[in-house]
């Protein structure tokens, strides 16, 4: 064996691990374009990107949690709970503050604070109390889901109509024809990618997920890194909720059902390892787009029975992951 070169050589490797998700996305886009002429219209693209934003923003946070070796099943019901809380706070303060942007900002602040607190609770139970992440977040998942049902008295929490008109542009308007959810999703994704790839926090998260003992022996504050991934995810759930509430102006117990599984699926499709140790945010973004596109294409075409939508989605998820598997399974 020779000593390593002193200058790092840029190596060009076009392996499927990198190309897999991109390839799957390209194939889907081609299929969509062939099936329906409107698929590539600006309107449809805006629709798909905007509706991807909720799951997408959450999935970016989930990428860090999973990379650090954790899991969070509570994000869907957390989003529903935060949405409910945000609506209640805005409706409750309406007589005091009146309809207007100040009240919207109070609502936003509520969402962020509630998200931070919810993430902190998950993180605290997992790191300080040393309970399995799966169990903790399964528990909080049930808790938030029940809380929103309770807040809504079994029905639907609806934002005051006057406020709805004010807040609506947060989902539907934007700048230069790009809607706000898309802009926020893009910003979160870019920031996430930079932190994951170039930030000390991303490196530490990967180290903790790869082997928390090594991280501990290397003077990394393992608990703090873990905690921060959950808090970060909570904040992002809050941001996603800020984007969600303006769309329909309501929240109910059916809000955000199965978002957690979609977010986790997007993260894994994107090439992050479920057992932790390696994560990539850009992959997650592609995973989210793949999931949204499948639903969109199925709605735009007539060939497939709507009963089979879930099956088509399942097949494509599995294919996307097969494309990037490490090597042939042994044994």
């Amino acid at each position, binding site marked *: 064996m020779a000593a390593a070169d002193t200058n790092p050589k840029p190596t060009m490797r076009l392996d499927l691990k990198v190309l897999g998700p991109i390839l799957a996305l390209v194939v889907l886009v081609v299929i969509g374009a062939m099936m329906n002429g409107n698929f590539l219209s600006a309107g449809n693209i805006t629709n798909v990107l905007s509706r991807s934003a909720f799951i997408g923003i959450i999935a970016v946070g989930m990428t860090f949690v999973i990379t650090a070796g954790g899991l969070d099943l509570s994000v869907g019901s957390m989003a529903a709970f935060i949405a409910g809380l945000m609506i209640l706070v805005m409706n409750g303060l309406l007589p005091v503050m009146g309809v207007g942007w100040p009240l919207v900002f109070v609502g936003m602040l509520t969402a962020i604070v509630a998200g931070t607190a919810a993430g902190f609770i998950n993180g605290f139970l997992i790191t300080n109390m040393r309970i399995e992440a799966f169990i903790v977040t399964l528990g909080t998942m049930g808790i938030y889901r029940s809380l929103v049902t309770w807040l809504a008295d079994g*029905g639907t929490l609806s934002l005051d109509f006057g406020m709805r008109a004010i807040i609506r542009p947060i989902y539907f308007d934007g700048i230069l024809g790009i809607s706000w959810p898309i802009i926020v999703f893009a910003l979160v994704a870019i920031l996430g990618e930079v932190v994951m790839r170039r930030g000390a926090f991303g490196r530490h998260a990967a180290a903790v997920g790869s082997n928390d003992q090594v991280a501990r022996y290397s003077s990394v504050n393992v608990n703090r890194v873990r905690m921060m991934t959950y808090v970060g995810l909570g904040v992002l759930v809050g941001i996603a909720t800020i984007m969600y509430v303006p769309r329909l102006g309501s929240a109910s117990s059916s809000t955000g059902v199965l978002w957690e599984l979609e977010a986790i699926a997007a993260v894994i499709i994107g090439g992050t390892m479920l057992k932790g140790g390696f994560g990539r945010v850009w992959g997650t973004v592609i995973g989210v787009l793949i999931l949204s596109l499948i639903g969109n294409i199925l709605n735009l075409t007539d060939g497939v029975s709507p009963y089979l939508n879930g099956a088509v989605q399942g097949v494509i998820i599995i294919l996307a992951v097969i494309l990037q598997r490490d090597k042939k399974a042994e044994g």
Partner: protein
Amino acid sequence: MKLTNSIGAFALAATLAMPAFAQDTKVIGVSIPAATHGWAGGMNFHAQQAVDRLEAVYPQLDFVLATASDPAKQVNDIEDMMATRNIDALVVLPFESEPLTSPVKAVADSGAWVTVVDRGLAIEGIEDLYVAGDNSGFGKVSGEYMVSAMPDGGKIVAFRGIPTSIDNERVAGFEAAIEGSGIEIIGMEHGNWNRDDSFVVMEDFLSKHEQIDAVWASDDDMAIGVLAAIEAAGRDDIKFVLGGAGMKEMIARTRDGDAMIPANVTYPPAMIATAIEMTAVGLTSTAPVSGTFVIGSVLITQDNAAEFYYPDSPF
């Protein structure tokens, strides 16, 4: 509303099911699905209200109310009521017909009174009283309204709920009613009685179809998602959206003359209250209440909307 009842059956059932009455406290179990969407939320509200009211009226009655998030949980609830609360009567709105049939039959076989609400069991004749919603009637009334509102025919998209027999009956009734009217269903997808899902499906329908004359949303939750998508797309080809089940906000808009929501079709969640009340009456008096009691679906338009607006209901 029509009452089809058979007094002979009642007399028999009454002697079997209530050997000793009015002496000691009787327990009525109420088992219903949890509030997972707007209609179910309303149904939960009415069930709770009925229980509160009847407990005050009839001191000799005790109520046990359980809500289940899936059929398996509902089976457990009913078994628990049998085993631990020794119920004298059961009012059940089955999550699904098949899995609930034999547990409910076991309750009936034990001699307790059984009232089934909304969807029937897989085997006929188990229940003493059946308070039914009329799903094919719901579809039929909706279809007939569509035909009358679009005399020259036109292109519509239709939204279905969660795949169940209820959904199938409604859609079949609707399709039969628009048969030969020149109305064409150019797209049909599941909106799962959910606002978000329906919003997304409607966005895609709008991308796919250049011209849509009307939408059969079939449910007011789904109608809300559909309306938001139409508004966001800024399309004016759609003349109206027909929801269903009579959510109070939507009734109010019909009453106030909103052109997009000219009508509604009832499928009252309060049918659970009717069922509980009739069961209570049956258990405490000799009034005949057994048989089948169908609560028909009624068309609501601006003319009669005020009668159907219940400000206190959450739905």
